[in-house]
């Protein structure tokens, strides 16, 4: 846990780890100069960033609409103040008023302390975009966080967690470093589990050339969320699909979105297109992953550099389609436990999945209780953008960030008898909420949405 003038910050990747993700760290004495140069590049490129820099009126509306501020009451966690960490530098170097009037208009010279502040506070942002959703002008502080993280990445400052995930992705095609034998092995194990628990035969074809459908699961599903992968397998088997899981990209996530939207994100996109080409599939279906789905749905078309040959949809969209067309037989009473739904931010504010998830959950669960606020107004779980740090101090922050979520879950009453289910259909939400439901003693178990589909399917 590095200490820097009382700032809370996650462990940084070492120089060697940075080189593994293709970055030569900038020496301290050049950091300020380079940061200004990178900032200049960014502001000339991204209009969303320029507008966030130049049109905020500081009304303060975003403050109490951000769960990180609600949880910590740290003024720098007010979205507009988080942006101000860059805005004051932007004003100083790139605006007339900042050059002429300095502090009066809130302009400041850049120094190393401020760069460390960027690192601390841009990695306390969940990139959930609730601020963009509530802002009267739609100013998207997530865009500012993303640009801050991009500049930090180029300077060689990335959390160990993100850098190691980036390196693992490049090495193996997934975040957890699974090799093909491990993938096949785990899937065989899951087949047996399904047989034991649900009494059905499900095969998970890996790298099957000529399959119609390529399903890209989150690699966390292999280790942490097996029921999500089992649910997907059961769904595809149930509908008699000719499907496969690619071993070269067994990862629904894309950490490029979170720390490097240029090289890393594009590299992952290219990997997917290669896999789809090699296997000759007709459609790509995405697994449960919030930030990943945003990256692949919204960013891929603009970054693929060619018209996409394959339609890409989310597995929730597909399940909902077969539910709406009455082709799935689901028994909502099988589960017999109360369920509430946490809307992953990226699904509801970036990908339009709010109604889709409800179509699915209502068909699978008899006792479904909404939490409020929900859908696009929902609060983040506190783990968004993978700030799932285990350093003790950062872990305390995660508890604070999830405070609002805990209040929301409690208000639904699903955990009253200790048998509730908190459906959080996103790998990062799951990773955050597994420990957090214990910390806040919510009496609920965290599950994905496809988990519930698998459990509710009626086979005969």
């Amino acid at each position, binding site marked *: 846990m590095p200490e820097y003038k009382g700032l809370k910050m996650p462990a940084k990747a070492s120089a060697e780890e940075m080189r593994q993700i293709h970055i030569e760290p900038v020496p301290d004495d050049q950091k300020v100069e380079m940061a200004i140069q990178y900032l200049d590049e960014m502001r000339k490129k991204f209009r*969303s960033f320029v*507008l966030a820099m130049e049109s905020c*009126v*500081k009304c*303060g509306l975003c403050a109490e609409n951000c769960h990180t501020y609600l949880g910590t009451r740290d003024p720098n966690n007010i979205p507009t103040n988080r942006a101000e960490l860059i805005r004051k530098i932007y004003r100083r170097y790139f605006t007339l008023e900042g050059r002429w009037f300095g502090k009066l208009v809130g302009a400041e010279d850049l120094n190393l302390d401020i760069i460390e502040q960027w690192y601390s506070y841009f990695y306390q942002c969940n990139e959930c975009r609730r601020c963009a959703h509530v802002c*009267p002008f739609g100013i998207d502080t997530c865009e500012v966080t993303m640009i801050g993280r991009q500049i930090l990445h180029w300077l060689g400052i990335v959390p160990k967690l993100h850098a190691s995930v980036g390196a693992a992705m490049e090495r193996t095609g997934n975040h957890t470093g699974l090799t093909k034998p491990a993938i096949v092995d785990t899937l065989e194990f899951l087949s047996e589990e399904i047989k034991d628990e649900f009494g059905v035969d499900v095969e998970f074809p890996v790298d099957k050339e000529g399959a119609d459908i390529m399903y890209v699961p989150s690699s966390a599903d292999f280790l942490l969320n097996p029921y999500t992968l089992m649910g997907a397998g059961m769904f595809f088997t149930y509908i008699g699909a000719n499907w496969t899981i690619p071993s070269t990209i067994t990862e629904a996530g894309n950490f490029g979105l979170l720390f490097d939207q240029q090289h890393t994100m594009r590299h992952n996109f290219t990997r997917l297109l290669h896999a789809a080409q090699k296997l000759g599939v007709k459609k790509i279906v995405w697994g449960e992953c919030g930030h990943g789905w945003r990256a692949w749905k919204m960013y891929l078309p603009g970054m693929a550099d060619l018209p996409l040959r394959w339609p890409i949809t989310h597995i929730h969209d597909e399940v909902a389609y077969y539910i709406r067309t009455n082709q799935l037989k689901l028994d909502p009473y099988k589960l017999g436990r109360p369920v509430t739904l946490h809307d992953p931010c990226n699904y509801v*504010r970036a990908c339009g999945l709010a109604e889709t998830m409800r179509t699915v959950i209502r068909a699978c669960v008899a006792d479904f209780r909404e939490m409020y606020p929900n859908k696009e107004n929902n609060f983040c779980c506190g783990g968004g953008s993978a700030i799932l740090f285990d350093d003790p101090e950062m872990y305390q922050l995660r508890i604070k960030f999830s405070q609002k979520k805990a209040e929301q879950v409690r208000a639904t009453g699903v955990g009253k008898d200790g048998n509730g289910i908190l459906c959080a259909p996103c790998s990062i939400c799951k990773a955050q909420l597994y420990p957090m439901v214990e910390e806040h003693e919510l009496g609920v178990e965290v599950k994905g949405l496809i988990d519930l589909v698998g459990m509710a399917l009626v086979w005969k």
Partner: protein
Amino acid sequence: MTYFIAQILPYITVTVFVLGVVYRLWRWAASRIVHNITLSPFPQTKTEVAGIYLREILLFRNVFNFDRPLWVGAWPMHIALLNVIGGHVVGFYFLGKQFVYLGASEALSKYLSNLLGTVFGIILLAGLLYLLYRRIAIDKVRQVSNPSDYLMLLLLISIVSIGNFMRLVPEYGMHYEPVKEYFTTLILFQPAAIPEGNPFFIIHLLLAQILIMILPFSKLMHLFGMFGMRWIENRVYKEPAPGLPNVDVAAARARGTGLSSASSTDVA
């Protein structure tokens, strides 16, 4: 000094304002919309997009939904400001007789013009004072404020206070006719001196010009910025069609895929 404020400065003000706004808009336009960051739920038609713009501009819906105490000050303030600015243009141009076109008598029109001006002037001042109070007294707002945020409010409050003072204290009031004449000469590039030596009017005029000159270099650009930001974030997005290739669920269920009795090579 009066000569400078009334007959020279206005031309500088307009030049700075126009060039400044063009410069800022050019800066915005020079950067690109790189990624699709449309906020969902996605509007399906341009009409829906226009609906989002309108409800935010006319009603401040987000402020209403997510920070009601702010809305109570901000919405009336902006509506009053719009009416006061409109009132200045229309009132002086028609000499207060604008409502004649809506069927009122001349006397009634002048009465209405005065009444509306007074009412909106007071609402505007109250709104601004409330916003200043928020900035000073409420922690979260104070914590996001720069010195310029207070100065901007103080400048607006000064302009509006003087305007209200002239309207409420008849000795220092301005009549429509001489002001109209003055502005007419300004527009014709033959600026005449301000007819009466009313110091309040001169200060009002000076401060208003300062505000107009500052606008392009300040957060007041949010007037244009909000359109720029919504242009990026509220756009039509059509979902790709769901439905999987070569899938026939009825046939699969008839075959009993997944059930032990069915053959394991059940996929076609």
